[in-house]
């Protein structure tokens, strides 16, 4: 078993029968699950199965229409105050990085702390530089996103999310837009983050990463969780036909 020593038994995200429609299209069909503090969950599944939509409901970039989501004791409703609280507790890293191109890497990171956490500029910059150091790119602080490589951009994006001191980090295919030689530098940073005890929900097809880091692998298909298990069981002894097919296809690559 790869049960992580950081994982406690306190739930931090509780999803009860979560449904989501895009107009008539039923994307999430009743997701019920609980993530514990410090847990690392890897979410995989075919394209269009609702993985992104699911993790985006957790910081309310998408609204769910039925069921309940409770994040660190705060229920996600239309209450603006709750939404703002949640967004400070939940960091997100996107497939396309989404760095702000008109701001230097440092300013990308300090924007949230200065404007939302109300830190002084000096304090925010100190923290940002420390984060860039941790990401191994301290020397890129004063460049613009367009001047650094994809792998470096994604690490700036991770630093930007961490600068808000979130309790939970969401990753939506963080390495899918990267050239192969840059994938490992981003995974290394995520691995380090995992060991630091962060609660992480990671949508990825990096099966090596999943085996090594995840406490649980969830398999999505057509808006439902078809199967979930610890990595060893998931990869070596999948129960469902669709899971087996998916694993064999993914591992062939």
């Amino acid at each position, binding site marked *: 078993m790869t049960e992580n020593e950081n994982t406690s038994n306190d739930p931090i995200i509780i999803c009860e029968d979560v449904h989501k429609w895009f107009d008539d299209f039923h994307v999430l069909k009743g997701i019920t699950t609980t993530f514990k503090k410090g847990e690392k969950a890897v979410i995989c599944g075919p394209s269009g199965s609702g993985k992104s939509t699911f993790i985006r409901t957790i*910081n309310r*970039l998408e609204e769910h229409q039925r069921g309940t989501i409770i994040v660190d004791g705060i229920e996600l409703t239309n209450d603006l105050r709750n939404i*703002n609280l949640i*967004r*400070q507790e*939940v*960091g*997100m890293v*996107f497939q*396309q990085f*989404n*760095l*702000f*191109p*008109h701001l230097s890497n440092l300013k990308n990171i300090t*924007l*949230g702390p200065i*404007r*939302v956490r109300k830190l002084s500029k000096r304090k925010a910059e100190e923290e940002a530089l420390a984060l860039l150091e941790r990401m191994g790119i301290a020397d890129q602080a004063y460049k*613009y996103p*367009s*001047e650094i490589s994809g792998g470096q951009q994604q690490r700036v*994006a991770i630093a*930007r*999310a961490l*600068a*808000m001191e979130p309790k939970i980090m969401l990753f939506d295919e963080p390495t899918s837009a990267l050239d192969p030689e840059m994938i490992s530098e981003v995974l290394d940073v995520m691995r380090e983050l995992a060991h630091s005890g962060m609660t992480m929900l990671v949508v990825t097809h990096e099966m090596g990463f999943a085996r090594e880091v995840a406490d649980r692998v969830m398999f999505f298909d057509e808006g439902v969780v078809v199967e979930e298990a610890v990595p060893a069981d998931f990869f070596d002894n999948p129960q469902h036909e669709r899971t087996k097919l998916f694993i064999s296809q993914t591992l062939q690559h």
Partner: protein
Amino acid sequence: MHHASNTMAQNSTKIPFWRDTRVLQVLFQILFLLGVFLLAGILYANMLKGLDNLGLNLKLDFLRNEAGFDVSDTVIEYDPSNTYLKAFIVGVLNTLRVSLLGILCATVLGLFIGISRLSTNWLVRNIAATYIEIFRNIPLLLQILFWYTVFGSLPAARESINLFDTVFINNRSIYFPSLQQTAGISSWVGYFYAAAILSVISIFVLALIFHRKQVERMEEGDDIGYFTHVTRAAKWSIVPVFFIVAIIGWFLAPESPFVLGRPELQRFNVEGGIRFSAGFISLLIALSVYTSAFIAEVVRSGIQAVSKGQREAARAVGLSTGQTLRLIILPQAVPIIIPPLTSQYLNLAKNSSLATAAGYDDLFRIGSTILTQAGKAIPVFAMVMANYLIISLTTSAAMNWYNRWVNRFNR
């Protein structure tokens, strides 16, 4: 081998000029320009001959003659005994006034409507959409006449509408309070010299304090240099010192340096304040509203051109909707917006020549009057056209400069 490469090298340095593309390009351009000048010269000579036969000429002497007509709404002092040239300048200034104010109002309105057009609020979004569709699809001339008619249906001067004793409106004019200098102005200005001296002292003192503080904090010998302290000290000195001195000076001066000259309703008319004619206001409203509808669309498409991911990333780090718009979306949308915005500005300036419909004496209208009275069609037309051209080219140049400034960080 050696021999062969040698001849090749010689070959490349010695091309006869009639085969050298560099020479030929320049030569063709010179020939082309010569041709254009020649053609223009022939046409010009022909025109002069024709005019001569008609007993006309292109001389500008007539500009010194007395204009003899009145202009009701002017920026500078003018009366009918002034020259045509003065009347012409009055027209230019009137066109500039309505264009500049129109550009300002249209931009503010357009920005507001364009952002509202993308609101998540159904009502706001649809009101903005309706505004855009109505005002950009009704011909501008009709809109000018509409506002002019609305104005015309207001009460006459002696029954002017009185808004809080501050603004007066009647069917001919609108009056706003104006700032008027008093004798107190000279001593108030005097305090600004004091402010300048105080600022300089304050900069030195602050820079010294900043420097001391940094020396205390210095660990790795990372001296950022004295100049940084000076600029920082200047930032913290100049504005506050001037601000404080300006306020203190205001009260210390024997008389307030400016007083508000409020318009007052007399027996037959409104006196005092600053007056705008109904024609000017109708034209200004019509131009602003009409152009704002186009600017709103420019703003909307500029905002939509910024990727959805940018908004999501901003929301994900906890920025509010307003912060997201101000700090993330607009800075990226502005460079996209500027080129189409420029052409809206140019349209507004040129459309101001419809002023005649509201009886406002702009460049075109005064030009036409001069033309009719003095009978100098070609010079007057040339002057009017040249002025519109200058206004347009200046606008373009200013916007190009702004565009470069906005894009200074994009490499």
